């Protein structure tokens, strides 16, 4: 008979600290996470602080006292407000173009013959790889030519900065939305389409009653992504905007001409909006989830 031996931990009363490899690993991990978040949020925190400092230049030290006057200056700055409104208009315009373009491109990609699929894919994704500057310049040159050829009026959309910016940004933002739709479409069961057709639906009805409800999450993400990408775009906009201005071009010119803490105040507003939006979304999502569980 061979006895089975089990190794038990030594039964001792001592509780002395012993450094183990896991302790080192945990310490390194904690340190890394600390640095990670400091790097990520440090600038934002600093910038937010400068918005409340009574100092003519955005800096934290010396602290000259708490003030809200930069917020006041921000909303009375007509350039800034005009640029902000233009950015909203352009963002909305880009959503209206890029979402249907991206959806059409993704649908085409999922139905096109497999032999040309890879070529088509490269073509529709190429605007993402093209530098924004190039897109901006070419948009400007192309529509200028079109305007010349059609002998268009100088007040026409061919020369309008807002229109050209919407079109220019939409060329590459459509590729982003296309990728979002593509990911969602890959999980679409095409027999659902066949089932709807078989039950007598027309192709239009299949699109609106079967495909669009399925794509709804992707439609929302694509619209949000398109808007945000448009809102923060500078490279393309700087060429296409011409006489008009957007928030990014106003900020850029401010940096060149001397920056005030009003810019920090704007940053605080944007950060707070983002945080509030994210928090509301999370709360609603949790509430919906518990409702589903109860129901």
């Amino acid at each position, binding site marked *: 008979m061979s006895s089975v031996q089990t190794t038990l931990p030594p039964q001792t009363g001592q509780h002395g600290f012993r450094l183990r490899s896991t302790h080192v690993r945990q310490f390194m991990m904690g340190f890394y996470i600390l640095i990670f978040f400091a790097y990520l949020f440090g600038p934002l925190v600093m910038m937010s602080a400068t918005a409340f400092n009574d100092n003519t230049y955005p800096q934290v030290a010396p602290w000259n006292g708490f003030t809200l006057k930069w917020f006041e200056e921000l909303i009375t700055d007509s350039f800034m407000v005009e640029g902000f409104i233009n950015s909203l208009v352009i963002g909305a315009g880009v959503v209206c173009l890029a979402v249907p373009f991206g959806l059409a491109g993704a649908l085409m990609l999922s139905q096109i013959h497999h032999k040309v699929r890879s070529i088509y894919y490269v073509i529709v994704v190429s605007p993402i790889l093209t530098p924004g500057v190039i897109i901006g310049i070419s948009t400007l040159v192309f529509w200028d030519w079109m305007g010349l050829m059609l002998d268009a009026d100088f007040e026409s959309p061919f020369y309008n900065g807002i229109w050209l910016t919407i079109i220019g940004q939409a060329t590459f933002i459509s590729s982003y939305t296309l990728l979002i739709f593509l990911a969602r479409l890959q999980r679409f*069961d095409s*027999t*659902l389409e*066949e*089932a*709807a*057709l*078989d*039950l*007598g*639906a*027309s192709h239009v*009805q299949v699109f609106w*009653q*079967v495909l669009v*409800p*399925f794509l709804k999450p992707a439609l929302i993400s694509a619209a949000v992504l398109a808007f945000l990408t448009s809102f923060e775009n500078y490279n393309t906009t700087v060429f296409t905007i011409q006489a008009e201005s957007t928030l990014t071009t106003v900020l850029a010119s401010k940096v060149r001409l001397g920056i005030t803490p009003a810019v920090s105040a704007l940053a605080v507003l944007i950060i707070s909006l983002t945080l509030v939006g994210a928090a509301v979304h999370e709360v609603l999502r949790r509430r919906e989830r518990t409702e589903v569980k109860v129901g």
Partner: protein
Amino acid sequence: MSANVELENLNIRFGDFHAVKDVNLNIRDGEFFSFLGPSGCGKTTILRAVSGFNDPTEGAIYIGGENMLGSGPNERPTALVFQSLALFPLMSVADNISFGLKVRGVGKVQRRKKADELLEMIALSDQGDKLPSELSGGQRQRVAIARALAVEPKVLLLDEPLSALDLKLREHMRTELRRIQQRVGITFIYITHDQGEALTMSDRIAVMSHGVMQQVGSAQDIYDNPATSFVASFVGENNPINGTVIAAEEGYVSLKTDFGELRGRNERGLQPGDRATLFIRPQNLCLSERGDFDNCIQTTVNDQEFEGEFEHLYLAGDSRNLVVSLINDGAIPQFSNGSPISVGFHSDRAVVLPAGEMAYE
């Protein structure tokens, strides 16, 4: 309400692949008709051609006498129950059922009324507001059928709808399907690779192999009088014994086989010299000592298997094991593997067919 479906010289090719070859068939009004065959035999292709998802390369499809050429799936008086069911995952069960009415512009109240009627028929009255994902497999199955019936099709097409269910539920759904068909009285075209389903439910069955329709007939017809070696080997258990015809007289032929001379029914006009296969079912083979048989096979036992009502003997055959199924009367002797045995059968129980493709290779 119902309509006959006529397939006229139907040929369907996908590139070089000839999926359906020269199918001529008339499926009658209100008939429960099954296409039976192994996967890849072309049965689903026929179904998709009838519902309008792919066009025949040659030939025509008539439903109720009307040529369906050029009519899309949404213009045909057919409804298809998909193998994957294809229920709309984001719509409630009632919305799924009434989808076909909604796209036809039927009002909300009437839609709900029809959905409630159908829900009652499939015994899911209180489940209309649930999502399909909240139902069990068998319930989803019934919803898919109700959804197809809601549009009041003249022909209901079913593509292996029971394949995802477990055995017990499948058997229950067979009866259920048959009941629904008798109740609504429309033509059902059923696709399956499961012969049990085809035999129990169908008025008539077409057995398919490699795009060719091998035989059309009632369940009894196909089981008792198979027309080809493929049908004989595919439908039910059967023991093939290969040989050459040496004599043919009065509806019977004698074959020279590895087990000596054997006799069976000559349904296909075989002549002396033809290569042929004799098929005898496991339940028609008996131990020779228990009766007076016209045919005897001397061979050895490979295995013996007890299965309650039956006991199966596996004997050395000419190409594969011969299976003998004996009713368990409590007096079946135990054989050791390799021991000699003699089994016999009556000539009228065996059918002799021209040598040809078998369902198992």
